[in-house]
């Protein structure tokens, strides 16, 4: 049996499979399909889905709900991520598990509502003030829209952190045939909910404090300001220095748990096509066609976009002389690869005209 569905529907099914119990969002093409489906499906499952008065209210409601123990998700596109900005920082600072879906469209500003783009790659990385770590997963197929949304919930819980699912208009709204077993039920890991103890106690710095929630056990505090382990505001340099290092190291020290790539090596390959998201479709075709011409080439599809999976990329770069990075922006992820590539030639293919990079363009760049 196979199914015929788009990525937005697969994201909704992933969220429901992962036990999402709270959703708030504001209408925006091309992410509205997620909002409408959650409004339809979540209440029947005992959850709450609400359309906020704007994106700011929507993510704010999600953060509040998460502090009662709800598994929360919101979904929008680039213009909405702009409005999420300060609350992304709040979720980082307050260590709130939250899944944020960005169904990218062409930007900047209103850009193209029904036009594909991958222009939010660095934006989701650096989209709020102060400097902070972030996790972002980029599905490259409709089946991955399901599996990586499930994974995003797991990582959000594991690290008490906002986690992005970075999709795009074509993945979100293109009907695709998927084997039905891609939607197998997943085991939803029960979260460790503590009922006592300081809500922000970590030792060592890379530890993630167990989640506390309102209404269970002794009262807890939450704050977006620099704070101590009890969330009382403080300016003490040792305390706030430790806090900010903790926010980084709780993720940076566990990269092996986050790294996710689809590596397709070939012996003797001197070229590597490194792609992510919807552009991986053309990249996979280009790799296949290049090999059919008798030219060895390797492929790497990066699914855990942030933090950059440096170990996996380093492995894939061994023996490679040229890396081709196709993306629907002017080189946002290419700069991360250049950072890791040493003397290797890094060739970017960037399209910002609302069309997908073609397998032919990639094939020509591989040589």
């Amino acid at each position: 049996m196979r199914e015929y569905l788009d990525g937005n529907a697969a994201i909704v099914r992933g969220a429901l499979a992962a036990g999402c119990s709270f959703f708030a969002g504001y209408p925006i093409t091309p992410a509205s399909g997620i909002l409408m489906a959650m409004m339809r499906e979540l209440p029947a499952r005992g959850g709450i889905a609400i359309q906020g008065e704007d994106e700011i209210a929507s993510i704010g409601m999600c953060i509040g709900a998460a502090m009662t123990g709800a598994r929360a998700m919101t979904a929008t596109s680039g213009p909405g991520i702009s409005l999420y900005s300060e609350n992304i920082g709040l979720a980082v600072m307050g260590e709130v598990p939250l899944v944020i879906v960005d169904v990218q469209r062409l930007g900047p500003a209103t850009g193209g509502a029904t036009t594909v783009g991958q222009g939010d790659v660095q934006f989701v990385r650096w989209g709020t003030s102060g400097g902070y770590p972030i996790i972002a997963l980029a599905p490259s197929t409709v089946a991955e829209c399901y599996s990586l949304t499930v994974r995003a919930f797991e990582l959000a819980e594991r690290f008490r952190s906002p986690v992005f699912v970075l999709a795009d208009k074509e993945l979100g709204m293109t009907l695709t045939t998927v084997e039905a077993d891609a939607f197998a039920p997943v085991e939803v890991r029960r979260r460790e909910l503590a009922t006592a103890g300081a809500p922000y106690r970590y030792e060592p710095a890379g530890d993630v404090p167990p989640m506390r929630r309102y209404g269970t056990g002794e009262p807890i505090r939450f704050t977006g300001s620099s704070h101590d382990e009890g969330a009382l505001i403080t300016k003490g340099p040792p305390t706030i220095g430790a806090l900010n290092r903790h926010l980084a190291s709780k993720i940076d020290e566990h990269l092996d748990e986050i790294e996710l790539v689809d590596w397709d090596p070939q012996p003797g390959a001197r070229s590597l096509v490194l792609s992510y998201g919807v552009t991986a479709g053309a990249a996979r075709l280009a790799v296949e066609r290049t090999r059919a011409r008798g030219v060895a080439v390797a492929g790497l599809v990066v699914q855990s976009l942030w933090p950059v999976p440096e170990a996996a990329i380093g492995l894939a770069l061994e023996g490679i002389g040229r890396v081709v990075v196709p993306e629907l922006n002017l080189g946002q992820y290419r700069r991360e690869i250049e950072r890791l590539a040493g003397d290797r030639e890094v060739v970017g293919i960037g399209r910002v005209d609302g069309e997908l990079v073609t397998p032919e363009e990639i094939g020509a760049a591989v040589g």
Partner: protein
Amino acid sequence: MTAAIETIATFRNRLPYPFCPGCGHGSVLDRLDQALVRLGRDPSRVVIVSDIGCSGLSDQYFATNAFHGLHGRSITYATGIKLADPSLEVVVVMGDGGTGIGGTHLINAARRNVGITVVVMNNLNFGMTGGQHSTTTPEGAITSTTPGGNLEHPLDICATVGVNGAAFVYRGTSFDDELADRMLEAIERPGFALLDVWELFTAYFVKPNRFSRKAMESLMADADLPPGVLFRRDVAEYAAAYRAAHADDEVRSLATPIPIGFAAPLDQPVTLVVAGSAGGKVRSAARLVGEAAIRSGLWAVQRDDYPVTVQTGHSVAQLVLSPREMPLATVAAPDVLLLLSADGLRKAQPLLPAMRRDGVVVTIPEFAGVETPARVVVLDPAAASTRIGRDDLALVLLAASVAKLELLPVDALRAAAGTGAYAEANLAAIETGLGLARD
């Protein structure tokens, strides 16, 4: 031995307030403490959500749960908390600054009537940041950003939330004897409740404006901002109403598995582009063909293109049918192009010269003269056995193309169309198309 009954004497903790001498914040928080004591709920069931500014410090002096978030957004966090766990008592403490930057949340919370209580500590200007004017600064008032006197009309917070549906609205001052009573009433009343509590701001506002308790009370009269309970309504609390409205919702499976019961002759991928007008059921017709392909053991991918508007302009569906799984990617030129309308032609024009000689353009007599290396097949809807509506043209021509080009078994298309609300009309359109293909 007698069991000791422990009553909570205070919801305050032991920390002293940090507010300026003479500031009203402390007495407002003392009244809130009294109201919470009389409410009598366990502190672990109460959440105080504070905004930014000196009002944002408030939560630190209570032994309840606390949420200190971003400026102007306190109402949104409170809404999420209450929606997700209606058994919690949620009180927002914000300043007048928050009613400006968070004005839309104020209005919409009132409309929505989620059961939260908002206490606005309204000292008529920004305190913590240095005495700048706010939404509630009186006309003519001197502040650090209105050195010549405020030219803006002050926001009537109470009327704003009141006319938009709030369950309870009260205006008073930090000196009011009844403040704790009104706070308790606000907390206990279902729906959205707001108390606009005016205060003296001794550090900045009082001196340049010769402000006092008496001046504050006469300002209320002069500015037509009367004190007292201004709105008291019986409303349905949103979190409860939401749950009641969905109590009988049934969980339906989202899985829509498509059985494979046919076999298609394709050994290479075929790309069809259907170019028509928005509102012409282009996408839904193409979807039926995709489903028919899946029923025939093929893999279908349908990528749509249309303007942001609805029901005007072009609607183009690109359908790839393949004997093996195909990633989502652009196809340079289609094997089959269906031209249905002038909108579709405008959008598909660049594809025509790029098509191969063994490609096929299927169209209506109006576009019979298009220039392309591909073979042009003209089907005349006027020759059909029944009149073909604008909405049906896409499916009629798709069915005709499927049959003429032998892409799929037509029974697979019939099977795909045989369910759903439009089954009858779709099946009729398919038969019309099959008829056209035979003629």
